[in-house]
């Protein structure tokens, strides 16, 4: 395995945009469920920062980033405020939000993967941490709203896109590719899969019961 990498320092504008967009979509989620101020703040924070919190807890690398860098909290508050005040506008601009959201899935996967690699985790663990970073916020959001976790229900590719992005990153990196190319490919693969599945409404497969197919056809099936 090549040397471990330093955890990736993204330009702060990308961080800011990713967190703000996450907070806006969290706030919209809360508004659709007629929550109050506290609900919007909590759900927006979950959507924006939740995945990173779980990642930092798993990696035991000190307090989560959102506590040590207070600008993260500010971005989340700004996003929550925007989502709260202009929810009707953002509900109409779903395409805009979905495109940005799709782009940032790749970014989150990459942040999670590089941070896990920097902590010296192995191949599979990096994949897991990367996917959790990208999807954990949504899971926390659904749990706090008291709903079924939408990640587990059949729907458009989210965790799958994240996993494929992380896999691409790790394969390129593992076989000694340029770090920059690995990062670029990771974002491209994850975001493309996510956006394609949203655009064409591609659904994740349901479990298929093969036992029936292997059973001896003694009885007529209908």
């Amino acid at each position: 395995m090549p040397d471990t990498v330093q955890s990736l320092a993204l330009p702060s504008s990308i961080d800011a945009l990713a967190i703000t967009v996450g907070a806006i979509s969290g706030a919209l989620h809360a508004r659709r469920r007629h929550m109050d101020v506290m609900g919007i703040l909590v759900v927006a924070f979950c959507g924006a920062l939740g995945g990173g919190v779980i990642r930092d807890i798993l990696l035991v690398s000190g307090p989560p980033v959102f506590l040590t860098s207070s600008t993260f909290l500010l971005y989340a508050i700004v996003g929550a405020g925007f989502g709260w005040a202009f929810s009707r506008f953002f509900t109409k601009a779903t395409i805009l939000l979905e495109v940005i959201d799709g782009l940032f899935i790749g970014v989150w996967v990459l942040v999670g993967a590089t941070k896990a690699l920097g902590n010296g985790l192995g191949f599979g663990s990096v994949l897991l941490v990367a996917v959790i970073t990208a999807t954990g916020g949504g899971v926390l959001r659904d749990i706090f709203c008291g709903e079924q976790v939408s990640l587990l229900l059949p729907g458009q590719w989210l965790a799958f896109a994240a996993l494929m992005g992380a896999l691409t990153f790790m394969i390129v990196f593992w076989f000694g590719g340029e770090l920059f190319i690995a990062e670029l490919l990771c974002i491209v693969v994850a975001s493309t899969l996510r956006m394609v599945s949203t655009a064409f409404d591609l659904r994740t497969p349901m479990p298929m019961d093969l036992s029936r197919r292997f059973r001896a056809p003694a009885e007529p099936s209908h």
Partner: protein
Amino acid sequence: MPEVYTGATALPMWTLYLAVVVGGVAGATYAARRGFDVIGVLTLSITAGLGGLLLRDILLARGPIVLRDTTFIWSATAAAVLGFFFAGYIARFDRALLALEALAMGLLATVGTDSALRAGLGGLSAIAVGTIVATAGPLFRDILGGDAPQLLRPGVFLGIIALGGSILYVALDAWTKQALLSQILVILTVFGTRLAALRLDLETRSAEDVSDRVWSYWGRKDRGNA
């Protein structure tokens, strides 16, 4: 034995144990009302009582005090026993329980905020930690019980008071630099506000959309120019 982190409270430690008992009793009576069994009552009393403090230590990345100091576990267990056997009796004093819960919420908010400040975090982060510690108990209780959390729905001021208490503590601590004094002041303020909100039925409203108002403002301006 390594030095046990004793939680950051300038008040005597038993106040924190008492806060755990109060939160635990609230969780246990909730479980009893929902018809949960003995494990359900115990689980809910432990999560509602200890959840906030546990979450604080996870967020500040250190060994949870609720596991190091076993008095915390015993306090939550005592609360479960109370809730299991005397749920009906406790339900008759629900106003007293609400008042005690308000006291516990104020204490937890100050403890959370103070330990985040002492861990070297900034003011905004400390406010976030204080609010999380103070509200995690009721939130976990509702999630485990399968309810939409009361904390997030419109209703009598609850989370907003914990938020306000944390903000007030950061301000007072920076101003007076006296942990005990600011802690007592914040607890009294939280207690008073919560009771006043309950008495006067002060309720949070569900979120409001101002985009129409903004657009009509711009629209008017356009018409004026035309």
